[in-house]
């Protein structure tokens, strides 16, 4: 099903040590991958260097059908730059990968696509916002792209799935080496739900540290805009933002508490001109995508509080300004711990308040 030339491109993609430069020299010399494969010999050594030459020679010996078999066995598909379903936005960037390996569904144009990136060691705030914004974007037909890492990435993928939308995970490792392993079920879920897990690396490639900065250009390349949620100093997300700026993508950042370590980088970008994002609607508006279901974004109808007992009403009201601890609520309402426990359960079951780790309670807003 692949042409000879395409298979030859796969052959080149299977080499991990072939550099971008080496590849260019190869193409200049031979013209096409197919010709390079046919004329493979001593000349190549000068073009690509000893390491890549050795690797490509070994792959050359196994033959093109060998590599095709690996892809078929692992249920991996490849898409090429001239293909109809190669992502259009990605095709525009200067260093777009010749071949993309993927599982799931590839589309030429994700009509609306946003990447959500951020810290792997997120806070509850960051996680909740990433989830919520991804969900709301997904509900408005926006494809959410991220990196399948722990933290914000995971929350973004989960949010998009929850919103019933399409989401794409770009890996920094081969598709048979999904990293982190804990997220393998998430990757499966993404594929089943009509999204895709993609990588430019050969299937068995390990998640090495230097793969990720290179991977990041694909994350930003796939989308119209990049949203940054929580990043500490020296974060890898800064590289993604850098790629986004060179590729001419819009950069959004979500503000956080000024004294939190995860706010440092987003706030700096905001001062330098990134767009402020507080909810999915901010992105939809700025990108000129009308929110399809504006009412979804509107604040929810006021909760029905009429049948609360006076005590429950007063507990509910005491949480209106800020979150409070069990002890605070207890002394504000002059209740015994046993009674307060019972009231809290009733309010929670009604969906009016929720409890956070550390016995802290807050009013639930939708």
């Amino acid at each position: 099903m692949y042409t000879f030339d395409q298979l030859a491109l796969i052959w080149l993609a299977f080499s991990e040590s072939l550099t971008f430069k080496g590849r260019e020299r190869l193409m200049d010399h031979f013209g096409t991958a197919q010709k390079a494969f046919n004329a493979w010999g001593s000349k190549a050594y000068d073009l690509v260097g000893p390491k890549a030459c050795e690797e490509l020679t070994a792959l050359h010996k196994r033959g093109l059908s060998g590599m095709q078999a690996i892809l078929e066995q692992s249920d991996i598909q490849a898409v090429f730059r001239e293909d109809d379903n190669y992502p259009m936005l990605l095709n525009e960037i200067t260093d777009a990968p010749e071949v993309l390996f993927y599982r799931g569904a590839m589309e030429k144009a994700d009509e609306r696509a946003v990447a959500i990136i951020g810290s792997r060691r997120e806070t509850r705030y960051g996680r909740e916002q990433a989830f919520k914004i991804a969900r709301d974007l997904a509900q408005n037909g926006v494809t959410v792209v991220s990196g399948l890492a722990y933290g914000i990435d995971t929350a973004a993928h989960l949010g998009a799935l929850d919103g019933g939308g399409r989401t794409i995970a770009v890996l920094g490792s081969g598709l048979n080496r999904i990293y982190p392993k804990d997220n393998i079920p998430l990757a499966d879920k993404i594929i089943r739900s009509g999204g895709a897990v993609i990588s430019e690396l050969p299937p068995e490639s390990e998640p090495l540290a230097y793969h990720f900065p290179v991977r990041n250009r694909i994350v930003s390349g796939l989308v119209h805009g990049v949203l940054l949620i929580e990043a500490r100093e020296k974060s890898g997300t800064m590289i993604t933002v850098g790629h986004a700026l060179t590729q001419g993508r819009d950069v959004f950042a979500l503000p956080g508490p000024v004294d939190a370590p995860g706010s440092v980088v987003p706030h700096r970008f905001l001062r330098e001109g990134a767009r402020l994002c507080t909810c999915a609607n901010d992105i939809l508006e700025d990108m000129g995508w009308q929110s399809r279901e504006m009412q979804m974004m509107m604040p929810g109808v006021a909760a029905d509080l009429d049948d609360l007992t006076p005590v429950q009403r007063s507990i509910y009201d005491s949480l209106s300004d800020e979150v409070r601890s069990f002890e605070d609520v207890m002394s504000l309402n002059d209740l015994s711990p046993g009674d307060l426990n019972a009231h809290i359960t009733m309010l929670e079951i009604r969906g009016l308040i929720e409890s956070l780790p550390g016995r802290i309670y807050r009013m639930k807003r939708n």
Partner: protein
Amino acid sequence: MLARTLCYALNGIEGEPVAVEAYASGGDQYQFAMVGLPDAAVKESRDRVSAALKNSGFTMPYGHTTVNLSPADLKKEGTVFDLSIAVAIIQATRQLKAFGLDDTLLLGELALDGRVIPVQGVLPLIISANARGIKKVVLPSLNAPEADTVTGMEIYPVHSLYEAVQHLSGQMPILPQLQKSYQECLARTAPALDLSQVCGQHAAKRALEVAAAGGHNMLMVGVPGSGKTMLARCLPGVLPLMTQEEAFETTRIYSAAGLLPTGSGLMTNRPFRTPHHTASAAALIGGGANARPGEVSLAHNGVLFLDEMPEYPRRVLEALRQPLEDGVANVSRVKAHMQYLSRCMMVASMNPCPCGYYGSRIRACRCGSHEIRKYLDRISGPLLDRIDIQVEVDAVPIEEITRSPQGEKSEAVRLRVEAARDIQQKRFEGTGIRCNAQMNNKHMEKFANMLDDAEQFLQMAIRKYALSMRAYSRLIKVSRTIADLKMQEHITLKDVAEAVQFRMIDAKYWGNTR
């Protein structure tokens, strides 16, 4: 001539009768043989006994002396046989006129100068002997307090072999020890850490009260320094005073394990055991060549406190499940197979995450959610399900520590707990269980007594918080305890609503990170 005295050997926490026979056959060569499966310590008693005899004004017979400990197939350990061997030899060599010894138990180790020094396991030995109709016991004076509440037995404390023989032969009888009532013993109960010393923490204190009232296991989750350990240490003072039966059970285990301090009497304080997290499964459940009791049995009728629960090896925690569930630890080893009671409350504490500050308002947590999940996953679901009450303990702000008025005293809480326990005692009469935590499904059907709207509310809560079926029955038990604390016959909706808060950690920590 042949003489016989009576001793008891320790087998687990039971005493087995051992007849000590001595036979002096004369002859012209000194020989002293000891038969009847003695271990090294028992064999050495030859030398101790002969020295003690000489230093007490008796002689060691010249010629052939055989001492037999029967039944010969029971393993004999320790030094408890010294006194009975010495007295048997004195009898066998007719150094005094014969005196009757069949009904008197002789316990004690001998020093070379003839002093009688204390031994391990006196209480279990006396209890077993008493059950078999033995009415008199001569024992080391330092062991006497241990037995001072045993009824139906005359207890003669002695200081030396000479004093023992003088008493037994009737030349200078001593008076039996005056036995105390159990109430008198209770008076010397030492006060535990008092609840009033714990500032704030009302939610945790309430959980502690409910746990104590129903005998429920408890898990405290909180930031470092929030007072989890202090709260746990308050628990013995909140639990009902030990009954005499319980005190005997517990003291017996300690005495057999050799952990009773010399000269101390019956244990009237509930035990509080805090095994370190490097402890092995054998240390917790019981083990060693002779299948000694483990921490879970040493905590019988008291509290087993596992500080920093996720630090314990998973295998050790899983091993705890069976003894906690059944109230009995079965310990099988090469030399012995033992069964020890282990009806204790397990109280565990843990941090909410590796850095300890997840959810804290005072300090920011440095952990990612996957790190938190990995940490929490060290506690298996089945184990978590077996912990009836889970409670979050938050750090108390400094200003609260200094300003907060003195809280309720342990004594006041204990009285409420005792009232709730009395109700349970009556309810479970004849069922073989003692408190709500021990109810099985059949008991629950019979005793839960839940109002209809409470039942409906419970169903709703189960769905809302996605709780397991096991959590469901735990909720009923805890609701029953809350109703008992209020002296209500029925479980009301409010009781269930409160009980739900004691299972919230499940959903809050384990739920949302998964």
